[in-house]
Each structure stands twice: as structure tokens, then as C-alpha cells.
């Protein structure tokens, strides 16, 4: 790590044998620094036996890989990894795989941002409602209610609320007239203050204005209605337009997270399916030499491959077209890298013989184990060796399943 990379040479912990500086910091700090820089910078990231790379170009992350993850998942995993070892990368991806802008990057580096990445949260019950005798305790800005609404909105469970003019309406049908007027005034002032916002900042400005107004209107309405009707008043988490609008994130995040959840559920479903031996399934006749044996054939065992799967962690490597090892995880990764380079070269020659230049992906399988060699989206060569069940999603991704 050089002084220009992070601007703090005092944090350099040690040097590699070839003289390159190694720094130990959190990736969030790196992202915060590089998102404000116009330079092209690449870093090798190592933590907990997992390594990868992250590349910045004019403040944007254009490519990231970390262990078996690539793209946005890799960025999230790096952010979760805590303090990591950073050093200057010697390579540069041939083509970008990400376009994460500074705003989104900085929002991801927030301490709370990684909490909502992993799964889709289902709607939960709102917190217990206070008695109508204490209206000040039932303000819609209840911390727990806001958290739940935010998670719902990010996970994609809440629908998008879009007004006829393309902007977010804030409908509070049960609110009395003074609250609605206050909301409309504040909305108009927000529009005049920010005449032509664009992109993420536009959404953020609209959201912040709408949040303030809807909270104000809802608090007035709830307290007045609670006093007048004398029953339990609803909290802000029941107001779907305001809650969804208040916490609606930029449109990139929910799509990626939903894909990750879907791929995981597919893997789990396949792994839990009973595996019947091929001979039983096809009713292959038993050879005569085995027919006389006293020992009967073992009955089909469900989950027969599961112990082997658990014992064989997937080894994954990513190598450059010239054979440089970019990322590796698992044991015997060096041998896998060599095999991947060799297999990839031969597969390209076969493709050329068949008159097909371009990507040649190879999948070898046997005994419940698979070896996959594929060209990644940035023209690196990715290889994975492990249980076939675990590689199902990867195989489907490269069109070999």
C-alpha cells in the first residue's frame, strides 16, 4: 500500500518479500477513501484465509471478487470481513463487472448496512401499542417500527408506491385536514428548494421530505384520533406508503439480494432430495459373479452423498488468462489452478477445431465430485472443485446444467 493509496503511510504494517507494502484496515475505510478519488486503483484483499480483489475507477467499484463471490456479493463479504490485509494489485480486470457509484458505496459502508443483505425478512407484527392515555408514546417515529419498515422496503416485500406524476404520493386517508395541508405545504417547499434533482439524490431528497411530512401528519392525526375515538391507535409501521417511501433504497440492491436468496434455496432443496444409486434407478442387472454372494445389496440410502459433501469443501480459484493466480480458496488450490489453465487451453483448442472461437466451459464429474472450468465475466478463468450438488448454481450459470 502506498501513501497515495490511502493517504496514511503510518498504517503500513509490513512489507512483502518483493517490497510491496501490506496494510491492515477495514475495507469500509478503503471504500470511503477511494470513492472520493479519481484515480484507478486496485487492491488485493486477504482475510481469514480468503483472498480477492477490489478495483476502483474514478470513485466507482468496477470489479470485486472475494473467495467464491464475485461482484456485489464480494463487496458485501469484504465489508463484513472486518480488518483485512490490503496490498496493491498488480493486475487489472479486462472488463468491468460492477458500477457501484460513490453514494451507494458509502451507504454500504455504514455500520448497519450489511445487516439487511443476507436474507429477505418477512413482515413482522408491529410492536405492542401503548394505551390511548399516553399519546406521546405512540409517535410514528418509533425506533423499532422504523427498523422493521426499512427492512421490509429493502427486501422487496413492500410494494412500490408511485404517484401519477412519477413521484411518490403520501396518502394518509384517515388523517384530518390540517395534517394533509401541512404535508402538502412541506411537499411543495421541498420541490421548490430542489427544483431538478436527479438519480439517487432525487429519490433521497424526495424521501427525506416525505418522511418528515408524513411523520408530522401521522403524529397529529394519530394523537387527535386517539383522543377523539378513545381506542388503540395505529403506529407508523401500519402506514404502508409512508413506511415504504421513507426507507426505499436505490433500485440496485434488492435485485441482487433476491438472486442470492433464490440460488441458495435451490441448493438446499437439491441437497435435501434423497439420492438413489444409479444402478437401482436404472435397474441394471447384477453381474453373475455378484449374484451368488450371500450379502444382499445395500438398500438405497437417502442423503448418501451428504457426508462426503460435508467433508469436501469446495476449492475455488480464479486465474488470469496468462495463468496468474488472482484468488484462491480451499486446499490444493495450486494444483487446481494448474489443471484449470491446462483444461481451459485444451478446451479452446477443441472449440477451434469445431470452428467455434470463444468461451469454452468445461465440466467434469464423477463420484459426486465435479470440476468446473469456466470463463468469468471479466475474461478471467474460474475453476471450482467440489461436490457436484454444491456447484449446481454455478453450473446453471455457465449453461452446463
Amino acid at each position, binding site marked *: 500500500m502506498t501513501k497515495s493509496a490511502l493517504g496514511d503511510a503510518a498504517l503500513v504494517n509490513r512489507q512483502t518479500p518483493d517490497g510491496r507494502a501490506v496494510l491492515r484496515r477495514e475495507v469500509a475505510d478503503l471504500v470511503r477513501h477511494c470513492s472520493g478519488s479519481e484515480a484507478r486503483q486496485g487492491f488485493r484483499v486477504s482475510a481469514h484465509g480468503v483472498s480477492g480483489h477490489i478495483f476502483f475507477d474514478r470513485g466507482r467499484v468496477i470489479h470485486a471478487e472475494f473467495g467464491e463471490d464475485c461482484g456485489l456479493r464480494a463487496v458485501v463479504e469484504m465489508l463484513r470481513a472486518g480488518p483485512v490485509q490490503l496490498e496493491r494489485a498488480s493486475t487489472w480486470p479486462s472488463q468491468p463487472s460492477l458500477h457501484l457509484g460513490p453514494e451507494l458505496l458509502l451507504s454500504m459502508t455504514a455500520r448497519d448496512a450489511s445487516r439487511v443483505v443476507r436474507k429477505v425478512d418477512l413482515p413482522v407484527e408491529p410492536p405492542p401499542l401503548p394505551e390511548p392515555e399516553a399519546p406521546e408514546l405512540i409517535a410514528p417515529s418509533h425506533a423499532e417500527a422504523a427498523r422493521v419498515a426499512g427492512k421490509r422496503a429493502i427486501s422487496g416485500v413492500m410494494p412500490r408506491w408511485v404517484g401519477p406524476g412519477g413521484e411518490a404520493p403520501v396518502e394518509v386517508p384517515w388523517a384530518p385536514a390540517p395534517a394533509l395541508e401541512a404535508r402538502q405545504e412541506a411537499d411543495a417547499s421541498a420541490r421548490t428548494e430542489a427544483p431538478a434533482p436527479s438519480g439517487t439524490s432525487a429519490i433521497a431528497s424526495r424521501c427525506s421530505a416525505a418522511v418528515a411530512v408524513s411523520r408530522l401528519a401521522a403524529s397529529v392525526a394519530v394523537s387527535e384520533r386517539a383522543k377523539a375515538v378513545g381506542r388503540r391507535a395505529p403506529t407508523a409501521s401500519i402506514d404502508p406508503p409512508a413506511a415504504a417511501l421513507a426507507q426505499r433504497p436505490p433500485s440496485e440492491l434488492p435485485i441482487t439480494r433476491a438472486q442470492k436468496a433464490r440460488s441458495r434455496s435451490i441448493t438446499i432443496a437439491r441437497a435435501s432430495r434423497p439420492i438413489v444409486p444409479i444402478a437401482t434407478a*436404472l435397474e441394471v442387472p447384477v453381474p453373475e459373479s455378484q449374484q451368488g454372494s450371500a450379502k444382499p445389496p445395500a438398500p438405497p440410502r437417502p442423503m448418501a452423498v451428504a457426508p462426503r459433501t460435508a467433508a469436501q469443501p469446495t476449492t475455488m480459484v480464479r486465474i488470469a488468462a496468462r495463468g496468474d493466480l488472482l484468488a484462491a480458496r480451499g486446499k*490444493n488450490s495450486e*494444483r*487446481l489452478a494448474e*489443471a484449470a489453465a*491446462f*483444461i481451459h487451453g*485444451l*478446451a479452446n*483448442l*477443441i*472449440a477451434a*477445431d*469445431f*470452428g*467455434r472461437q*470463444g*468461451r*469454452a*466451459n*468445461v*465440466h*467434469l*464429474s*464423477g*463420484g459426486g*465430485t*465435479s*470440476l468446473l472450468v469456466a470463463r468469468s465475466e471479466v475474461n478471467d478463468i474460474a475453476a471450482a*472443485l467440489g461436490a457436484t450438488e454444491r456447484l449446481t448454481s454455478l453450473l446453471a450459470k*455457465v*449453461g*452446463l446444467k
Partner: protein
Amino acid sequence: MNQGFDVLQLVQDVDWVVGSFVADTSGELLVYLMPPEFGEEALRRTASRLASIVRSAELCGVEVDQCDLSLSRYQLVMNRNATGMVCAVVEAPVSRRALSMALRIALAELPRLIANLEPEVPGARDPALPLGIDVPRLALPAERFGPVASVTPPESASLARSNVSR
């Protein structure tokens, strides 16, 4: 069955199969049923390279019995056992289940096919086979290593030596 050759025709009957060929475990091309645009030399190289790919995977601990190559438009599917390997060139819409079953049958017939190949004179044509283009063709012996040196049995050599001395 015509000496096991019709297993390739069986594979060919699966929709979206372009062609197929058989090689032994060392990657020597034995017989093929492919469109004319796929030359024999190219198939020979492909079989040899497939065997190398399998060997490299075995060094990584994979007991390979199947190999799939995605070559943009085409896919090359190889099933193998201890006798040899059956390869099929297919296009993407192929039914993988039907293809898998056809390749299993072909693999089961592979010992008989290879046994029938051994006594044959290289390049000889089986009279039982119908005339036509899409007929399995026997591959000629490999010539990539140049001509094989002639070997003289010891008895013949001593006889020749005695003739020369007389």
C-alpha cells in the same frame, strides 16, 4: 446390432444430436458418425485432448465419468467407462435426459464394439453396413507420430542371417 456400430446411430436418433464418435481410454479415435464438415483429423485431435483433460481432472481427485464442454453453439458431451469413451456433439435444445440414456446404452455396447474392431483390417468396410453418407466410419490408425518402425521376429532374423552367410 451390426457389430455394435449402430449404437452411434442410436445416439444420432436423439433430437439435436449433430454427431458422435468413440475413442478408447487413451484418446485414440476408433469410430465416428459425424457430418462431413468435421474432419477425421479434427476428431482425432479432439479425442486425444479429451483424454488429456480427463487425466488432468483425475490428478485433482475427480473420478471422471462424464465431461461436458460448452462451445458456444455446440456442446460436446463425453461419457466414459473403463473401456473407452463415447462423445456426442449436440446443440443446446437437446434433451439431456434422452441423451444421457442414449450414451449409457452406447457405453454398455462399447466392449462389443471394440472387440469387433480389433480383428478388422484398418479401413475395411463392413459389407453389412448400408451404403450412404451417415454411416459409422472406422478411424485409421494414428499417424501423428510418424511411421511405425518395422519389427522383425527373432526367428526370422536368424533365418535371414543364415541366408546371407550362405
